[in-house]
């Protein structure tokens, strides 16, 4: 390291000031100028997080939100060199700090995670699409799934209810976020725990629905008959309409 300890300390004091706002004594600076550095740094962070979490910002209000941003940037040690990934670190920091509990907004982790996942699914690296044909049989042929999706497990139904109504509905919720093949836009679908299991199991098994639907019947406690077939057909037709199922795998 060629840097003298004194120079290192000077640089660190300026960096620390930009994060915490505690004005340092620095040699050889022009009076009244360094606050512009703090302002510029804070603007970048605030703009990035405001843009990433519009629903959380709106739910908490400007003042509570500003405290969360300030707390994170002062104590959170942002590690990513890519500022568009900062919202993930913001989510992770507040989840680790249990901020939601502390400010009595227990849905906070879920809301931050859900808003981040919309960014994540929109920007995640392209995944290889399977070779598929459009015509086939939902029960007899293997389904070709849109690979660009993620399933998120939530404690509060912040994806289907306004947050003030979600708070007293704690439970197990699942949201399937996916990227549309043509437009690249992100959509989501609320899934029941059973449908989440069916979706994940089919994806993992790569077998026709008929071969494993008995598992689903046992799990749901129903007969594997017409009622189940109709329910599955309706569910999978919906997934096809949403382009979550692209068609049928080529053999």
């Amino acid at each position, binding site marked *: *390291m*060629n*840097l*003298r300890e*004194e*120079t*290192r300390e*000077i*640089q*660190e004091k*300026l*960096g*620390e000031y*930009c*994060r915490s706002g505690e004005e340092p004594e*620095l*040699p*050889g*600076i*022009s009076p009244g*100028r*360094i606050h*512009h*550095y703090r302002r*510029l*740094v804070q603007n*970048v*962070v605030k703009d*990035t997080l405001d843009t990433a979490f519009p629903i959380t910002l709106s739910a908490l209000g400007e003042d509570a939100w500003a405290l969360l941003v300030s707390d994170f940037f002062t104590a*959170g*040690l*942002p*590690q*990513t*060199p*890519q*500022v*568009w990934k*900062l919202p993930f670190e913001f989510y992770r920091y507040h989840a680790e700090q249990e901020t939601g509990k502390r400010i009595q907004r227990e849905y906070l982790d879920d809301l931050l995670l859900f808003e981040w996942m919309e960014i994540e699914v*929109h*920007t*995640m*690296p*392209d*995944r290889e699409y399977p070779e598929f044909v459009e015509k086939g049989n939902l029960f007899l042929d293997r389904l070709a799934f849109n690979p*660009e999706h993620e399933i998120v497990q939530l404690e509060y139904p912040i994806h289907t209810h306004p947050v003030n109504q979600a708070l007293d509905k704690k439970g197990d919720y699942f949201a399937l976020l996916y*990227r549309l093949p043509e*437009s*690249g*836009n992100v959509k989501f679908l609320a899934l029941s725990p059973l449908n989440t299991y069916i979706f994940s199991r089919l994806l993992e098994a790569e077998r026709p629905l008929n071969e494993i639907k008995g598992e689903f019947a046992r799990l749901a406690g129903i007969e594997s008959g017409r009622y189940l077939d109709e329910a599955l057909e309706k569910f999978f037709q919906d997934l096809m309409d949403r382009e979550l199922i692209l068609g049928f795998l080529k053999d």
Partner: protein
Amino acid sequence: MEGMVGLGLRRDIAEEILNRGTLSPDFLEFAPENWMGMGGTWKRVLDQAVERFPITCHGLSLSLGSPEELDWNFIRELKVFLDENQVKIFSEHLSYTKSKNAHLYDLLPIPFRRDAVDHVVDRIRKVQDMLERPVAIENVSYYTPVAAEMSEIEFVNQIVDRADCRLLLDVNNVYVNAFNHGYDAREYISQLPLNKVAYIHMAGHEQVEPDLIIDTHGRPIIDPVYELFEWTIKKMDPVPVLLERDYNFEDTEQIQSELNQIRALIKKHWRVEHESA
């Protein structure tokens, strides 16, 4: 790319450049950090840009002047990205953006000190070795010196000379710094190693106090900056010139007129040199 006029690729104007044709640069520049690791819509935009235009990249986060260790994982990823996208020139800022294990996401001024020169020179050399390409170092705008032991021009020149790197001459930054710190912009440029300039940046700025300009990239270039640019290019061989615009994209006609004005100045001075060469 000598004499070409480029524009920063921002998401807000990607459509104008790539599909509508209302902005017509000769080349494009983007910050790798804003595009690395992305798929989906933005990957398609990036691929389209790379297919149709020569590309330069302008880094934001290497933090060459930082007391922190270099981020080797990031530099490795950066190399792959630069190679994949056939980047002609890679540049970075002569500043630091990381301190005490925290990224700050803006450009802080390095103290103009001898040990800082040694430190930055060593890091630029290491980065160039890892990237297997020269790095062009940009003279940044700054709003206060910090614990300086030498002048800005001495600091920049020593680094460019000893690091064996290129220089990204930001003409607007020279104007901003000359205004903010009370020196002569032409005298400053006269002392730079203009034969090491890889390319030039032009941009607009904002005067926020009677004696302070902030380098915002959000407004049109002002006439004194065009004049400084014209004065500068008469003294040097042709290089690419890039217009930086980070905000206020509504008036694309005005942005295109800035590209045209830069192009006209280049044609006036560098075409003659080409023809006589």
